[in-house]
């Protein structure tokens, strides 16, 4: 069973939020949707789980009991304790009695929430709240895990733990789709979707995206903006020549994934598309 979106477009009134997005999710894989704010990442996920109506195209997903969804904000009841939050989520997905208790305690342990189990959701730190929300979504062992910006704004340590949990879910057989604004996280995916203003401007495994960029990448150490397409990197500038040689004084450089993403965005601005 594969799930995902097929040629999906979403309009909010007159504004196109998603245009012709297609992706397939396989079990035991992690797909990452990257893009800035307003790129359509959340809309993508919400269309997948059925919170947003499609204007065209199709969304394929399993039954509700097989889905675990964590929205970008919230997901945790601030006036219920950690235990009560888990109990509610479990109950809603049909877990009862002894199994519910077992799964709840297992969740508390795996997510490092045992010490906080009787604390109110609103009194948890941002990172712990996100972990609890994730725990609630995983309690019923869904086949499809949908996470909207699970790591935005949380500290690097919690982020590292989040990704550990995500990897574990994938290793356990789930199909996972995650959105993020952090490009370095996209490298962890087996499949990346780069979104810009609702359109897919690059898609594929991280290595294939890097391999697909044409032209040459270079680095310039001048104080002023060098000629050509360039962007700041530390004290230096990165320069991209889509065709032909690099300008004078620019040394060539092997592109990394982050460079590929910037280049893909620039290419999109110029009206070209990356072929992956």
């Amino acid at each position, binding site marked *: 069973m594969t799930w995902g979106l097929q040629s999906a477009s979403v309009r909010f009134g007159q504004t196109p939020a998603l245009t012709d997005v297609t992706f397939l999710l396989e079990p035991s894989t992690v797909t990452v949707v990257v893009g800035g704010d307003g790129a359509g990442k959340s*809309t993508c996920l919400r269309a997948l789980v059925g*919170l947003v109506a499609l204007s065209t195209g199709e969304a394929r997903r399993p039954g509700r009991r097989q889905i675990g969804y964590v929205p*970008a904000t*919230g*997901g*945790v009841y*601030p006036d219920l304790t950690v235990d009560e939050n888990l109990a509610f989520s479990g109950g*809603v997905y049909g877990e009862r009695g002894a199994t519910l208790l077992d799964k709840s305690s297992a969740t508390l342990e795996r997510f490092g929430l045992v010490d906080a189990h009787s604390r109110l959701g609103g009194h948890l730190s941002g990172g712990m709240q996100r972990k609890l929300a994730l725990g609630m979504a995983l309690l019923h062992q869904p086949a499809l895990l949908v996470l909207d910006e699970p790591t935005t704004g949380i500290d690097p340590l919690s982020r590292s733990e989040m990704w550990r949990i995500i990897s574990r879910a994938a290793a356990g057989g789930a199909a996972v789709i995650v959105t993020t604004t952090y490009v370095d996280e996209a490298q962890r995916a087996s499949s990346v979707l780069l979104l810009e203003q609702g359109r897919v401007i690059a898609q594929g495994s991280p290595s294939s995206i890097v391999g697909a960029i044409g032209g040459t990448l270079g680095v310039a150490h001048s104080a002023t903006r060098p000629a050509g397409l360039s962007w700041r990197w530390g004290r230096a500038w990165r320069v991209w020549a889509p065709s032909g040689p690099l300008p004078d004084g620019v040394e060539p450089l092997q592109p990394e994934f982050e460079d590929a993403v910037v280049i893909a965005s620039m290419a999109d601005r110029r009206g070209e598309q990356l072929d992956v």
Partner: protein
Amino acid sequence: MWAMIVKEYRQLRRDRRTLAMMIVLPVLLLVIFGYAARFNVSTISTVVVGPQAEQVAAQLQAPFHVVEIDPGGDRSVAALRLKDGRAVVAVVTGRSSVLFLMDGTQLFPVETAESALGRMVQRAKASGITPPPLTVQILYNPKLITSWVLVPGLAGLILVFIGTLITSLGVVRERQAGTLEQLAVTPLRPWDVIAGKITPYLLVAAVDLVVIVAVGMILFHVPFIGSVATFALGAALFLLVTLGMGVLVSTVSQNQGQAIQLAFMVMLPQILLSGLIFPISSMAAGVRWISYILPLTYFIDISRGVMLKGAPISALWEPLLLLSVLAVVVLGLAMLRFRRDLAPSTRRSRTSITTHEQLAA
């Protein structure tokens, strides 16, 4: 400091809801007070029974407004009219003195009636006519105790408070925490969510009602003559309406502040126009129609009727039916709007821009 003033002004100009409250509300209150807030009553529905019904009826002038003349009727018929709420004053003729029965649950009409009677007697004497002997008997609330009339109404008001305001906050809190949307993805159906949300409030409100009535009875000695079952039925229907309104308010509010503003604007007319304080009969027609669409109006009919008059369910079928209709309409609307909230939306979610703010907070 000037920069601060300019900034606040610019922000206020854009906050439509607060502006509406600041400008519209005072105007509204003025209009209501102007047309509705009257303690003196201009018409009092009167029924005249007994052998001399016709003659006596002809002599009764404003504020008495004769709605029925029954020459064959007697005191029990007259009393029944009061119990059923068909009239405020029932005149029984054919006895040694003309008996004026008055409905003690209608404080202001009764006071107006008494003073009007007094004036009529004075005028007769002044023009040399000897008036017949008159007896006035006030039923149900003989001493015209205000608290007896107020407590049944207050019970309803408190239910309005809990039902509308607190329920709306409960649902909006869900929306603000971001969990409402998530519920749409779970196996829960919209009806599960609404019913699940309303039920605790229903139970608390029911307990509250019992407490208020009990306190009223113990502290103020308010009687409870009628059937508890009828009262409970009326209360249950009324609660469904107010809770449904709470859910409705929550579906058009994005945060608790807005919910409070809207709930307040919905509660205020009910406090002023439901007959709780100002008698409906004295309101100008142009404003009176509002009372007829307020659920509290009908609950007050029921609660006063049952507690003070012992009115049977047959007498109260009108307010009960109307409450049922209101309940169906309001809950139906609430369900529709709520389902829209939980269904695939065609609107952009407002949560995306506030992601970082909320996490940083």
